Protein backbone atom coordinates (compact mmCIF):
# COMPACT_ATOMS: atom_id res chain seq x y z
CA UNK A 1 0.00 0.00 0.00
CA UNK A 2 1.40 3.38 -0.99
CA UNK A 3 -0.78 6.41 -0.47
CA UNK A 4 -0.01 9.18 -2.90
CA UNK A 5 -1.39 12.25 -4.63
CA UNK A 6 -1.82 12.79 -8.35
CA UNK A 7 -2.05 16.39 -9.51
CA UNK A 8 -3.65 17.31 -12.81
CA UNK A 9 -1.39 20.20 -13.72
CA UNK A 10 -3.71 21.26 -16.57
CA UNK A 11 -6.41 21.91 -13.97
CA UNK A 12 -4.22 23.73 -11.44
CA UNK A 13 -4.90 27.47 -11.57
CA UNK A 14 -2.09 28.42 -9.18
CA UNK A 15 -4.45 29.79 -6.51
CA UNK A 16 -2.17 28.49 -3.71
CA UNK A 17 -5.26 27.29 -1.80
CA UNK A 18 -3.53 23.94 -1.19
CA UNK A 19 -0.51 25.71 0.22
CA UNK A 20 -2.55 27.96 2.48
CA UNK A 21 -4.87 25.15 3.58
CA UNK A 22 -1.89 22.98 4.45
CA UNK A 23 -0.39 25.71 6.60
CA UNK A 24 -3.68 26.31 8.36
CA UNK A 25 -4.58 22.71 9.15
CA UNK A 26 -1.05 21.60 10.08
CA UNK A 27 0.08 24.78 11.84
CA UNK A 28 3.06 25.06 9.54
CA UNK A 29 5.37 27.79 10.90
CA UNK A 30 5.91 31.05 9.04
CA UNK A 31 8.62 30.61 6.43
CA UNK A 32 8.05 26.87 6.15
CA UNK A 33 6.02 25.27 3.36
CA UNK A 34 4.92 21.65 3.48
CA UNK A 35 3.21 22.33 0.19
CA UNK A 36 4.53 24.91 -2.22
CA UNK A 37 3.25 25.94 -5.65
CA UNK A 38 5.84 27.00 -8.20
CA UNK A 39 5.09 28.66 -11.51
CA UNK A 40 6.95 26.92 -14.32
CA UNK A 41 7.28 29.17 -17.37
CA UNK A 42 6.40 31.06 -19.37
CA UNK A 43 8.68 29.00 -21.58
CA UNK A 44 8.74 29.18 -25.38
CA UNK A 45 6.79 26.59 -27.33
CA UNK A 46 9.25 24.61 -29.46
CA UNK A 47 9.25 25.98 -32.99
CA UNK A 48 7.39 29.14 -32.01
CA UNK A 49 8.44 32.78 -32.09
CA UNK A 50 9.54 32.73 -28.47
CA UNK A 51 7.06 35.57 -27.80
CA UNK A 52 3.45 35.53 -26.58
CA UNK A 53 1.31 33.69 -27.59
CA UNK A 54 3.95 31.08 -28.48
CA UNK A 55 4.66 30.36 -24.83
CA UNK A 56 3.23 28.03 -22.20
CA UNK A 57 3.15 27.94 -18.45
CA UNK A 58 1.85 25.69 -15.70
CA UNK A 59 1.77 25.59 -11.92
CA UNK A 60 3.50 22.82 -10.03
CA UNK A 61 2.38 22.03 -6.45
CA UNK A 62 5.37 20.49 -4.67
CA UNK A 63 5.39 18.67 -1.36
CA UNK A 64 6.98 15.53 0.05
CA UNK A 65 6.69 12.95 -2.71
CA UNK A 66 6.49 10.06 -0.20
CA UNK A 67 9.12 8.19 -2.19
CA UNK A 68 9.34 4.42 -2.55
CA UNK A 69 13.09 4.53 -1.91
CA UNK A 70 13.38 7.58 0.34
CA UNK A 71 16.83 9.04 0.82
CA UNK A 72 15.61 10.94 3.88
CA UNK A 73 14.90 7.62 5.59
CA UNK A 74 18.27 6.15 4.59
CA UNK A 75 20.27 9.04 6.07
CA UNK A 76 18.25 9.45 9.28
CA UNK A 77 20.45 8.25 12.17
CA UNK A 78 17.55 7.72 14.56
CA UNK A 79 14.84 6.19 12.34
CA UNK A 80 12.75 9.25 13.14
CA UNK A 81 12.08 9.46 9.41
CA UNK A 82 10.47 6.18 8.51
CA UNK A 83 8.16 4.46 6.07
CA UNK A 84 4.74 4.08 7.67
CA UNK A 85 2.40 1.12 7.12
CA UNK A 86 0.47 3.01 4.45
CA UNK A 87 3.69 3.64 2.50
CA UNK A 88 3.89 7.30 3.42
CA UNK A 89 7.03 8.83 4.91
CA UNK A 90 6.49 10.07 8.44
CA UNK A 91 8.66 11.67 11.12
CA UNK A 92 8.66 10.60 14.75
CA UNK A 93 9.38 13.95 16.37
CA UNK A 94 10.33 12.31 19.67
CA UNK A 95 13.25 10.57 17.96
CA UNK A 96 14.45 13.45 15.78
CA UNK A 97 17.77 14.96 16.91
CA UNK A 98 17.55 17.82 14.43
CA UNK A 99 20.68 16.92 12.47
CA UNK A 100 18.86 18.02 9.28
CA UNK A 101 20.64 15.51 7.07
CA UNK A 102 17.23 14.50 5.75
CA UNK A 103 16.73 18.12 4.67
CA UNK A 104 19.95 17.91 2.67
CA UNK A 105 19.19 14.46 1.28
CA UNK A 106 15.70 15.33 -0.01
CA UNK A 107 15.93 16.30 -3.68
CA UNK A 108 12.82 18.48 -3.51
CA UNK A 109 13.59 20.85 -0.63
CA UNK A 110 10.32 20.06 1.11
CA UNK A 111 11.64 19.39 4.59
CA UNK A 112 11.94 22.22 7.08
CA UNK A 113 13.33 22.68 10.54
CA UNK A 114 10.65 23.77 12.99
CA UNK A 115 12.64 26.47 14.81
CA UNK A 116 10.41 26.27 17.87
CA UNK A 117 10.32 22.50 18.34
CA UNK A 118 13.84 22.01 16.93
CA UNK A 119 12.78 19.05 14.82
CA UNK A 120 12.34 18.55 11.09
CA UNK A 121 8.84 18.54 9.66
CA UNK A 122 7.22 18.00 6.29
CA UNK A 123 3.99 16.94 4.59
CA UNK A 124 2.37 14.05 6.46
CA UNK A 125 -0.22 13.56 3.74
CA UNK A 126 -2.54 14.75 6.50
CA UNK A 127 -2.07 11.41 8.24
CA UNK A 128 -4.40 12.54 11.02
CA UNK A 129 -7.20 13.12 8.50
CA UNK A 130 -6.59 9.99 6.43
CA UNK A 131 -6.88 7.87 9.57
CA UNK A 132 -10.37 9.30 10.07
CA UNK A 133 -11.38 8.61 6.50
CA UNK A 134 -11.01 12.23 5.48
CA UNK A 135 -9.03 13.73 2.62
CA UNK A 136 -5.70 15.52 2.89
CA UNK A 137 -6.50 19.21 3.20
CA UNK A 138 -4.73 20.10 -0.07
CA UNK A 139 -7.03 17.65 -1.87
CA UNK A 140 -10.31 18.71 -0.25
CA UNK A 141 -9.41 22.39 -0.62
CA UNK A 142 -8.37 22.28 -4.29
CA UNK A 143 -10.73 24.62 -6.13
CA UNK A 144 -9.67 23.35 -9.55
CA UNK A 145 -10.20 19.68 -8.65
CA UNK A 146 -6.59 19.11 -9.61
CA UNK A 147 -5.56 17.10 -6.54
CA UNK A 148 -6.50 13.45 -6.06
CA UNK A 149 -5.45 10.97 -3.40
CA UNK A 150 -5.30 7.20 -3.73
CA UNK A 151 -3.18 4.10 -3.54
CA UNK A 152 -0.57 3.58 -6.24
CA UNK A 153 -0.74 -0.19 -5.76
CA UNK A 154 -4.48 -0.19 -6.47
CA UNK A 155 -4.15 1.85 -9.65
CA UNK A 156 -5.61 5.08 -10.96
CA UNK A 157 -9.20 4.02 -10.20
CA UNK A 158 -8.48 4.27 -6.48
CA UNK A 159 -7.81 8.00 -6.64
CA UNK A 160 -10.56 10.19 -5.27
CA UNK A 161 -11.06 13.90 -4.72
CA UNK A 162 -13.43 16.28 -3.02
CA UNK A 163 -17.20 15.87 -2.76
CA UNK A 164 -19.65 17.42 -5.19
CA UNK A 165 -22.68 19.48 -4.17
CA UNK A 166 -24.79 16.31 -3.97
CA UNK A 167 -22.39 14.85 -1.43
CA UNK A 168 -20.86 12.29 -3.78
CA UNK A 169 -17.13 11.85 -3.79
CA UNK A 170 -15.51 12.50 -7.16
CA UNK A 171 -13.46 9.70 -8.69
CA UNK A 172 -10.42 10.86 -10.61
CA UNK A 173 -10.74 8.63 -13.66
CA UNK A 174 -14.40 9.57 -14.09
CA UNK A 175 -13.98 13.28 -13.47
CA UNK A 176 -10.81 14.29 -15.27
CA UNK A 177 -10.48 15.09 -18.93
CA UNK A 178 -8.97 12.11 -20.82
CA UNK A 179 -5.25 11.55 -20.46
CA UNK A 180 -2.76 8.96 -21.64
CA UNK A 181 -0.19 7.02 -19.68
CA UNK A 182 2.41 9.19 -21.42
CA UNK A 183 0.82 12.29 -19.86
CA UNK A 184 1.83 11.15 -16.36
CA UNK A 185 5.09 12.55 -15.00
CA UNK A 186 7.18 12.57 -11.84
CA UNK A 187 9.57 15.07 -10.34
CA UNK A 188 13.26 14.38 -11.08
CA UNK A 189 14.17 10.95 -9.75
CA UNK A 190 17.71 10.33 -8.46
CA UNK A 191 16.89 6.82 -7.32
CA UNK A 192 14.35 7.84 -4.67
CA UNK A 193 11.34 6.84 -6.81
CA UNK A 194 8.79 9.55 -5.99
CA UNK A 195 5.28 8.17 -5.44
CA UNK A 196 3.45 11.35 -6.38
CA UNK A 197 2.52 11.89 -10.02
CA UNK A 198 1.54 14.80 -12.22
CA UNK A 199 -0.71 14.78 -15.27
CA UNK A 200 0.18 17.25 -18.00
CA UNK A 201 -1.46 17.14 -21.42
CA UNK A 202 -0.39 19.00 -24.52
CA UNK A 203 2.59 20.82 -22.99
CA UNK A 204 6.22 20.01 -22.48
CA UNK A 205 7.03 18.66 -19.01
CA UNK A 206 10.06 20.55 -17.76
CA UNK A 207 12.75 19.16 -15.50
CA UNK A 208 13.26 15.73 -17.04
CA UNK A 209 12.43 12.33 -15.55
CA UNK A 210 9.44 11.97 -17.80
Amino acid at each position, binding site marked *: MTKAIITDVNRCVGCLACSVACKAVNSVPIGNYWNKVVR*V*GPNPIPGGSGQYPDVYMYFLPISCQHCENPECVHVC*PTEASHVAEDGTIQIDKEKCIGCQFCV*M*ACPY*GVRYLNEEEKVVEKCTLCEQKLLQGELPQCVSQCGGNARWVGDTDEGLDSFVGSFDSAGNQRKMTEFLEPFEESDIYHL*PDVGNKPSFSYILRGQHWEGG*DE
Partner: protein
Amino acid sequence: METQWPLVIFTFFVCVTCGLLGSMSVLALKGQGRDLQMTALVASAVSLVIGGIGSFLHLQHWERIFNGFGHITSGITQELIGCVVLAILIVVWFVMLRGGKKLPVGLSAVTLVAAVAMVCATAHSYLMAAIPAWSWALVVFYLGNALMMGPVVLWGIAAIKRDQEVEKTAIGMSLIGAAASLVADLVYTAVCATATFANYGHYADPTSMTTAPTHIDSLMDIMVAGDGAVNFWVSLVCVAVVIACAAVARKKVGASVPFMAVAVVAAAVASILFRVLIYQLGYSVFLLY
Protein backbone atom coordinates in the same frame (compact mmCIF):
# COMPACT_ATOMS: atom_id res chain seq x y z
CA MET B 1 23.62 25.65 0.49
CA GLU B 2 24.43 27.64 3.58
CA THR B 3 27.75 26.62 5.12
CA GLN B 4 27.21 24.34 8.12
CA TRP B 5 30.17 25.45 10.23
CA PRO B 6 29.75 22.81 12.96
CA LEU B 7 30.03 20.14 10.27
CA VAL B 8 33.01 21.89 8.67
CA ILE B 9 34.70 21.82 12.09
CA PHE B 10 33.71 18.21 12.68
CA THR B 11 34.97 16.88 9.36
CA PHE B 12 38.16 18.93 9.60
CA PHE B 13 39.05 17.55 13.01
CA VAL B 14 38.04 14.02 12.00
CA CYS B 15 40.61 14.25 9.21
CA VAL B 16 43.20 15.67 11.63
CA THR B 17 42.52 12.89 14.14
CA CYS B 18 42.50 10.09 11.62
CA GLY B 19 45.46 11.47 9.72
CA LEU B 20 47.45 11.81 12.91
CA LEU B 21 46.53 8.35 14.21
CA GLY B 22 47.40 6.90 10.82
CA SER B 23 50.74 8.71 10.81
CA MET B 24 51.47 7.52 14.35
CA SER B 25 50.70 3.97 13.25
CA VAL B 26 53.14 4.28 10.36
CA LEU B 27 55.76 5.61 12.78
CA ALA B 28 55.15 2.72 15.15
CA LEU B 29 55.43 0.22 12.31
CA LYS B 30 58.75 1.83 11.35
CA GLY B 31 59.89 1.69 14.98
CA GLN B 32 60.28 5.46 15.23
CA GLY B 33 59.11 8.24 17.52
CA ARG B 34 58.52 6.42 20.75
CA ASP B 35 59.23 9.61 22.73
CA LEU B 36 56.66 11.78 21.00
CA GLN B 37 53.87 9.24 20.51
CA MET B 38 52.22 10.33 23.77
CA THR B 39 52.18 13.98 22.67
CA ALA B 40 50.76 12.99 19.31
CA LEU B 41 48.21 10.76 21.01
CA VAL B 42 47.03 13.61 23.24
CA ALA B 43 46.81 15.85 20.18
CA SER B 44 44.68 13.29 18.35
CA ALA B 45 42.43 12.89 21.39
CA VAL B 46 42.00 16.66 21.73
CA SER B 47 41.24 16.89 18.01
CA LEU B 48 38.60 14.16 18.29
CA VAL B 49 36.96 15.95 21.22
CA ILE B 50 36.90 19.30 19.41
CA GLY B 51 35.40 17.62 16.35
CA GLY B 52 32.84 15.88 18.53
CA ILE B 53 31.85 19.16 20.16
CA GLY B 54 31.56 20.66 16.68
CA SER B 55 29.14 17.97 15.57
CA PHE B 56 27.10 18.40 18.78
CA LEU B 57 26.67 22.07 17.94
CA HIS B 58 24.96 21.07 14.71
CA LEU B 59 22.28 19.05 16.50
CA GLN B 60 19.08 20.78 17.53
CA HIS B 61 18.41 18.10 20.16
CA TRP B 62 21.90 17.07 21.29
CA GLU B 63 20.43 15.54 24.45
CA ARG B 64 18.95 12.84 22.21
CA ILE B 65 22.36 11.96 20.78
CA PHE B 66 22.09 8.32 21.79
CA ASN B 67 19.17 7.98 19.38
CA GLY B 68 21.89 8.46 16.78
CA PHE B 69 23.03 4.87 17.18
CA GLY B 70 19.67 3.72 15.89
CA HIS B 71 20.11 3.25 12.15
CA ILE B 72 23.20 1.52 10.80
CA THR B 73 22.69 2.60 7.15
CA SER B 74 22.93 6.22 8.22
CA GLY B 75 26.35 7.82 7.82
CA ILE B 76 25.84 9.67 11.10
CA THR B 77 25.33 6.39 12.96
CA GLN B 78 28.48 5.06 11.33
CA GLU B 79 30.35 8.23 12.33
CA LEU B 80 29.21 7.87 15.92
CA ILE B 81 30.35 4.26 16.03
CA GLY B 82 33.62 5.31 14.40
CA CYS B 83 34.20 7.99 17.05
CA VAL B 84 33.66 5.42 19.80
CA VAL B 85 36.08 3.00 18.12
CA LEU B 86 38.72 5.71 17.76
CA ALA B 87 38.25 6.72 21.40
CA ILE B 88 38.75 3.10 22.49
CA LEU B 89 41.88 2.80 20.35
CA ILE B 90 43.25 6.04 21.81
CA VAL B 91 42.71 4.64 25.33
CA VAL B 92 44.50 1.41 24.36
CA TRP B 93 47.42 3.39 22.93
CA PHE B 94 47.50 5.48 26.10
CA VAL B 95 47.67 2.39 28.30
CA MET B 96 50.42 0.85 26.15
CA LEU B 97 52.48 4.05 26.06
CA ARG B 98 52.06 4.71 29.78
CA GLY B 99 53.16 1.20 30.62
CA GLY B 100 56.27 1.60 28.50
CA LYS B 101 55.28 -1.51 26.60
CA LYS B 102 56.25 -2.13 23.01
CA LEU B 103 53.43 -1.11 20.70
CA PRO B 104 52.09 -4.27 19.06
CA VAL B 105 52.16 -4.33 15.28
CA GLY B 106 48.54 -5.45 15.37
CA LEU B 107 47.48 -2.31 17.26
CA SER B 108 49.15 -0.07 14.68
CA ALA B 109 47.57 -2.00 11.82
CA VAL B 110 44.12 -1.89 13.41
CA THR B 111 44.48 1.83 14.11
CA LEU B 112 45.49 2.46 10.52
CA VAL B 113 42.48 0.57 9.21
CA ALA B 114 40.14 2.27 11.71
CA ALA B 115 41.43 5.71 10.73
CA VAL B 116 40.81 5.05 7.03
CA ALA B 117 37.37 3.57 7.79
CA MET B 118 36.41 6.57 9.91
CA VAL B 119 37.31 9.00 7.14
CA CYS B 120 35.27 6.94 4.68
CA ALA B 121 32.32 6.82 7.11
CA THR B 122 32.47 10.59 7.52
CA ALA B 123 32.49 11.06 3.77
CA HIS B 124 29.64 8.56 3.43
CA SER B 125 27.43 10.79 5.58
CA TYR B 126 27.53 13.41 2.87
CA LEU B 127 27.03 11.20 -0.17
CA MET B 128 23.64 12.35 -1.40
CA ALA B 129 22.18 11.56 -4.78
CA ALA B 130 20.07 14.71 -4.54
CA ILE B 131 23.17 16.89 -4.48
CA PRO B 132 25.35 16.28 -7.55
CA ALA B 133 28.42 17.86 -5.91
CA TRP B 134 28.18 15.46 -2.98
CA SER B 135 29.14 12.33 -4.85
CA TRP B 136 31.65 9.52 -4.27
CA ALA B 137 34.40 12.05 -4.97
CA LEU B 138 33.87 13.33 -1.42
CA VAL B 139 35.45 10.10 -0.16
CA VAL B 140 38.52 10.86 -2.28
CA PHE B 141 38.65 14.44 -1.01
CA TYR B 142 38.39 13.51 2.68
CA LEU B 143 40.99 10.73 2.35
CA GLY B 144 43.37 13.11 0.59
CA ASN B 145 42.74 15.73 3.24
CA ALA B 146 43.49 13.29 6.08
CA LEU B 147 46.66 12.22 4.28
CA MET B 148 47.79 15.86 4.31
CA MET B 149 46.58 16.98 7.74
CA GLY B 150 47.92 14.05 9.77
CA PRO B 151 51.56 14.19 8.60
CA VAL B 152 51.64 18.01 8.76
CA VAL B 153 50.48 17.99 12.39
CA LEU B 154 52.98 15.22 13.14
CA TRP B 155 55.68 17.34 11.51
CA GLY B 156 54.71 20.17 13.84
CA ILE B 157 54.95 17.95 16.91
CA ALA B 158 58.29 16.50 15.82
CA ALA B 159 59.77 19.92 15.06
CA ILE B 160 58.68 21.31 18.42
CA LYS B 161 59.89 18.20 20.28
CA ARG B 162 63.16 18.31 18.26
CA ASP B 163 62.96 14.68 17.20
CA GLN B 164 64.86 14.87 13.93
CA GLU B 165 64.29 11.26 12.92
CA VAL B 166 60.51 11.68 13.11
CA GLU B 167 60.77 15.17 11.66
CA LYS B 168 62.43 13.79 8.56
CA THR B 169 59.85 11.04 8.21
CA ALA B 170 56.96 13.46 8.83
CA ILE B 171 58.26 15.91 6.22
CA GLY B 172 58.40 13.11 3.67
CA MET B 173 54.89 11.97 4.60
CA SER B 174 53.67 15.59 4.41
CA LEU B 175 55.05 15.92 0.91
CA ILE B 176 53.34 12.73 -0.24
CA GLY B 177 50.14 13.54 1.70
CA ALA B 178 49.85 17.07 0.33
CA ALA B 179 50.45 15.82 -3.20
CA ALA B 180 47.74 13.21 -2.66
CA SER B 181 45.46 15.95 -1.32
CA LEU B 182 46.04 18.06 -4.43
CA VAL B 183 45.22 15.09 -6.65
CA ALA B 184 42.10 14.42 -4.55
CA ASP B 185 40.99 18.05 -4.94
CA LEU B 186 41.42 17.78 -8.68
CA VAL B 187 39.50 14.49 -8.81
CA TYR B 188 36.67 16.14 -6.88
CA THR B 189 36.75 19.09 -9.27
CA ALA B 190 36.65 16.83 -12.31
CA VAL B 191 33.69 14.87 -10.96
CA CYS B 192 31.83 18.11 -10.19
CA ALA B 193 32.37 19.16 -13.79
CA THR B 194 30.15 16.26 -14.88
CA ALA B 195 27.24 17.22 -12.60
CA THR B 196 23.88 17.94 -14.22
CA PHE B 197 20.74 19.64 -12.92
CA ALA B 198 17.06 19.54 -13.83
CA ASN B 199 16.25 22.44 -16.13
CA TYR B 200 12.91 24.23 -15.77
CA GLY B 201 13.57 27.19 -18.04
CA HIS B 202 11.81 30.25 -16.67
CA TYR B 203 10.09 29.76 -13.34
CA ALA B 204 9.06 31.66 -10.24
CA ASP B 205 8.25 30.90 -6.63
CA PRO B 206 5.11 32.89 -5.71
CA THR B 207 6.18 32.93 -2.06
CA SER B 208 9.45 34.61 -2.98
CA MET B 209 8.86 36.56 -6.16
CA THR B 210 11.87 38.81 -5.69
CA THR B 211 14.28 35.86 -5.60
CA ALA B 212 15.99 35.33 -8.91
CA PRO B 213 15.68 31.83 -10.41
CA THR B 214 18.72 29.64 -10.07
CA HIS B 215 20.25 28.26 -13.24
CA ILE B 216 23.42 26.21 -13.20
CA ASP B 217 25.00 25.13 -16.45
CA SER B 218 28.09 23.72 -14.78
CA LEU B 219 29.45 23.62 -11.25
CA MET B 220 32.81 24.49 -12.80
CA ASP B 221 31.49 28.00 -13.42
CA ILE B 222 30.92 28.42 -9.68
CA MET B 223 34.27 26.88 -8.76
CA VAL B 224 36.52 28.55 -11.26
CA ALA B 225 35.00 32.00 -11.70
CA GLY B 226 31.85 32.22 -9.59
CA ASP B 227 30.96 32.49 -5.90
CA GLY B 228 33.28 29.64 -4.99
CA ALA B 229 36.29 30.85 -6.93
CA VAL B 230 38.09 32.42 -3.96
CA ASN B 231 37.71 29.30 -1.85
CA PHE B 232 38.63 27.04 -4.77
CA TRP B 233 41.78 28.82 -5.93
CA VAL B 234 43.07 29.83 -2.49
CA SER B 235 42.56 26.27 -1.31
CA LEU B 236 44.54 24.82 -4.21
CA VAL B 237 47.30 27.40 -3.78
CA CYS B 238 47.51 26.58 -0.06
CA VAL B 239 47.95 22.88 -0.82
CA ALA B 240 50.67 23.81 -3.29
CA VAL B 241 52.31 25.87 -0.55
CA VAL B 242 52.30 22.81 1.74
CA ILE B 243 53.96 20.78 -1.01
CA ALA B 244 56.58 23.49 -1.54
CA CYS B 245 57.28 23.83 2.19
CA ALA B 246 57.69 20.09 2.60
CA ALA B 247 59.90 19.85 -0.49
CA VAL B 248 62.21 22.60 0.77
CA ALA B 249 62.19 21.37 4.38
CA ARG B 250 63.45 17.94 3.38
CA LYS B 251 66.92 19.47 3.28
CA LYS B 252 66.44 21.48 6.44
CA VAL B 253 65.69 18.81 9.02
CA GLY B 254 66.32 20.26 12.46
CA ALA B 255 65.61 23.78 11.24
CA SER B 256 62.25 23.31 9.59
CA VAL B 257 60.06 25.16 12.11
CA PRO B 258 59.33 28.17 9.84
CA PHE B 259 58.38 25.88 6.97
CA MET B 260 56.36 23.71 9.33
CA ALA B 261 54.45 26.72 10.65
CA VAL B 262 53.59 27.90 7.13
CA ALA B 263 52.64 24.35 6.10
CA VAL B 264 50.34 23.84 9.11
CA VAL B 265 48.54 27.15 8.52
CA ALA B 266 48.31 26.56 4.76
CA ALA B 267 47.01 23.00 5.21
CA ALA B 268 44.37 24.17 7.69
CA VAL B 269 43.26 27.06 5.46
CA ALA B 270 43.12 24.79 2.41
CA SER B 271 41.05 22.23 4.31
CA ILE B 272 38.55 24.74 5.70
CA LEU B 273 38.10 26.67 2.45
CA PHE B 274 37.54 23.54 0.40
CA ARG B 275 34.90 22.38 2.86
CA VAL B 276 33.14 25.73 2.58
CA LEU B 277 33.34 25.32 -1.20
CA ILE B 278 31.66 21.93 -0.92
CA TYR B 279 28.68 23.64 0.74
CA GLN B 280 28.70 26.39 -1.88
CA LEU B 281 28.36 23.69 -4.52
CA GLY B 282 25.61 21.93 -2.56
CA TYR B 283 22.78 22.65 -4.99
CA SER B 284 20.00 20.11 -5.25
CA VAL B 285 19.40 18.52 -8.61
CA PHE B 286 15.93 20.08 -8.26
CA LEU B 287 16.67 23.80 -8.39
CA LEU B 288 13.19 25.31 -8.22
CA TYR B 289 13.71 27.17 -4.93
